[in-house]
């Protein structure tokens, strides 16, 4: 088994998440970076325990499955934050339409 480089691992996770989220990425990056770093450190810890013969294969699989599930939960939060950002943008645009129409007709129609 080769050594895992934490910074490479976190950078690759961030890059994959960033590609998926595109323009909604900047505001979520700090949260993602912090969580992926913790997950990366944990994966390295597990691999070190395996290499030292202190963790069985059966347990390792379960631990890695749990870290994978936690990563999915982080990604789902990022997706939700992205949706909330899109929602806010659409609602801001709708408000402009409403304000413009109300102002043009002189009373609050919308």
């Amino acid at each position, binding site marked *: 088994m080769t050594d895992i480089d934490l910074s490479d691992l976190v950078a690759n996770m961030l890059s994959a998440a960033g590609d998926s989220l595109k323009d909604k990425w900047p505001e979520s990056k700090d949260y993602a970076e912090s969580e992926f770093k913790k997950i990366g450190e*944990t994966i390295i810890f597990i691999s070190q325990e395996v290499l030292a013969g202190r963790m069985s294969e059966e*347990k390792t699989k379960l*631990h890695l499955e749990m870290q994978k599930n*936690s990563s999915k939960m*982080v990604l789902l*939060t990022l*997706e*939700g934050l992205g949706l*909330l950002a899109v929602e806010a943008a659409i609602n801001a645009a709708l408000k402009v339409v409403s304000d413009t*129409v109300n102002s043009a007709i002189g009373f609050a129609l919308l």
Partner: protein
Amino acid sequence: MKVKSNPFYAAHRLAFCAIISVLIFSAGCTSIKLIADYDEVIDSSVTEFQKNMETHLIKLERNIGTDDASHENNIDFYDEARVELSSIRVRAAAILKNELTLTQIELLIQNLENLEKIHELGIAANDIPPLRNAFNTGTTAILKLELAKKRGIEVEE
């Protein structure tokens, strides 16, 4: 009068009416929601679950190697935790546009099942750090999304 009969102005007026109609139609729903509203019960239940899980992990850590840390002596915790998460899952499923949170709860349930399998194999000191990280990361993710659903209110880190 002459202007009104001009086909150029007539087309202009028609286009203007069409644009206004589209604007009124789209603004008819003055705001949209792409994701569920904040739910206080999910917030407090997931926070409570995290607290119970941390208590469980601290007790296991303290009692490793003794009967108190055996799986048999902790079955009640797993039964109660399952009921707790099942109840949160039902709540999350009942809320419209809440698929992301629902999936997160299902992943948390899978992690609880994996924890119990690890416990059945015999818990060791080196199991605790990855277990703690998995549950803290997962519950933080659920709570971060839930709090963001408050919309417009700053979420404390």
